[in-house]
């Protein structure tokens, strides 16, 4: 459904007298299959939005190729526009308009007749549970309602693929869960959904496949389960005070069943092991035997954050 090869974009920014070139996206290759929810995960500034805006024809790539829903992005952006929907991160509704007006106009901008546009607006309002507010001005809506209007706007012309830029940013947990259901519903209706997010749990729970982006490049791609399996094994986190952390690090570095270990800023260690269940007693014995005061011990299945950490050397939470 989406195939990109070497998609690039750099921006020139001026700081005082100097002009700097920032490579926002440096050669992205993606393959997104029809009917999947594909997640683009990465910290802010990783190039997710720039990539998305290129795919949505809003900015022209500097280089590379892309085919979207069968249309060539560089040669025929007009055809791409007809086949895709795009929902921006910062909102797209006008305070003084009503949801119904926005939906009808949006449909008509795609060349749909007035009668059909009105029919589709009614259907969209029902599907997104907006009928009750349909004729109120957008400025009276809650954050979640407004986001639902925006998504309804993005798919009013029944595109094959819809791009959602951080669809749940700024929503409360309940609206977020609700939005996830809406996005899954789009997939059920046969749409391919491409979302960007910087929430790990969102990528994990919602997406069939994800690509992790950092500094303008895709550093990993696969299903969340595969990616986690790739950094094989479990993570054991031990809580120690700062002095004991140093001691324990020296002790445990020599243990062959620990593939990697990391210090935590607040004291304590993260130990990457093949199998947590058998490693825990051995770690316990070793630390206890040396007379160090062990405060806590936890077993983690690897998370997408661990994947991110392994691929980029830093945690998504801190970047």
């Amino acid at each position: 459904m989406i195939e990109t090869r070497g998609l690039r974009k750099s921006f020139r920014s001026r700081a005082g007298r100097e002009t700097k070139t920032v490579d926002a996206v440096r050669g992205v290759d993606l393959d997104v299959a029809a009917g999947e929810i594909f997640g683009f995960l990465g910290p802010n500034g990783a190039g997710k939005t720039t990539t998305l805006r290129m795919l949505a024809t809003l900015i022209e790539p500097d280089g590379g190729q892309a085919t979207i829903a069968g249309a060539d992005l560089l040669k025929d952006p007009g055809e791409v526009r007809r086949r895709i929907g795009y929902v921006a991160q910062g909102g797209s509704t006008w305070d003084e308009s009503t949801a119904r007006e926005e939906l009808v106009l949006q449909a008509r901008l795609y060349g749909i007749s007035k009668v059909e546009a009105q029919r589709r607006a009614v259907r969209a309002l029902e599907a997104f549970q907006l009928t009750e507010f349909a004729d109120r001005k957008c400025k009276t809506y809650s954050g979640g309602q407004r986001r639902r209007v925006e998504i309804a706007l993005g798919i009013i012309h029944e595109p094959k693929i819809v791009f959602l830029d951080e669809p749940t940013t700024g929503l409360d947990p309940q609206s977020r869960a609700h939005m996830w259901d809406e996005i899954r519903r789009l997939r059920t209706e046969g749409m391919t959904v491409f979302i960007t997010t910087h929430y790990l749990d969102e990528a994990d729970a919602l997406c069939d496949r994800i690509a992790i982006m950092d500094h303008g490049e895709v550093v990993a791609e696969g299903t969340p389960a595969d990616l986690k399996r790739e950094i094989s094994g479990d993570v054991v986190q031990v809580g120690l005070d700062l002095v004991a952390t140093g001691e324990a690090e020296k002790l445990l570095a020599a243990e062959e069943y620990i593939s990697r270990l990391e210090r935590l800023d607040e004291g304590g260690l993260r130990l990457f092991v093949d199998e947590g269940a058998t490693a825990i007693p051995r770690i316990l014995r070793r630390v206890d035997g040396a007379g160090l005061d062990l405060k806590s011990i936890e077993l983690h299945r690897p998370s997408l954050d661990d994947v991110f950490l392994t691929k980029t050397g830093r945690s998504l939470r801190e970047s």
Partner: protein
Amino acid sequence: MKLARDTWLIFQRQLHLLLRNPVWVFVGVFQPVMYLLLFAPLLKPALNAPTQAEAYKIFVPGLLVLLAIFGGLFQGFGLIAELRAGVIERSRVTPVSRLALLLGRSLRDVVSLLVQAVIITLLALLFDLRVFIGDLLLAYLLLALIALMTSAVSYGVALKVKSEDALAPLMNTVAQPVLLLSGILLPLAFAPGWLQGIAKWNPFSWAVDGTRALFSGDISNDRVWQGLTIITVLAAAGVFWAARQFARSVR
């Protein structure tokens, strides 16, 4: 065909939103009416006009051109609000014509200007202004072209600067010399030679002269066709340039 349909869609929406908030009619008419009531009475003695009606024949056309210039130049503010709300970006991912995004908005501005112009003209009739309907309609055409140009330019600049803080001083800086050098408030016939020399380079001074000629029933005056030609060319150039800004990436 598609251009006409798309332009109509954008125009309808913009007009609908404008009508929903009719305060603009009051605001748009209040200032010119103040000029008409509080400034124009000074003109008869100042211009040495034989009657009040003669003074209005000079002043009203200038006032209308002023309205067209300023009304247009400040439309960009609304567009910046739309940019911020993401409305423009949402339009740009649809196959809608980029020229229509501009024309629909600018035509709304032209219509709202013409409504104001009609109100002002009707009020001036109460003060004994008399003008032939044919001349008046031609004058309105000239005003419409001025408003089309200034609003298009304002939208283009708004898309470039993307902030009210930059747009306001920019537009004021442009508008002030344009205003002073066009003989809007007082005819440039009173100006010293050097000032008239500079004003010749101001397209709006030609427009003002043309409109004044029409209001005094002098349709065969060269300034009429000259003003119309100059403003038509500039309006076309302004629309062309601004439409390109809509087509290029926003942000």
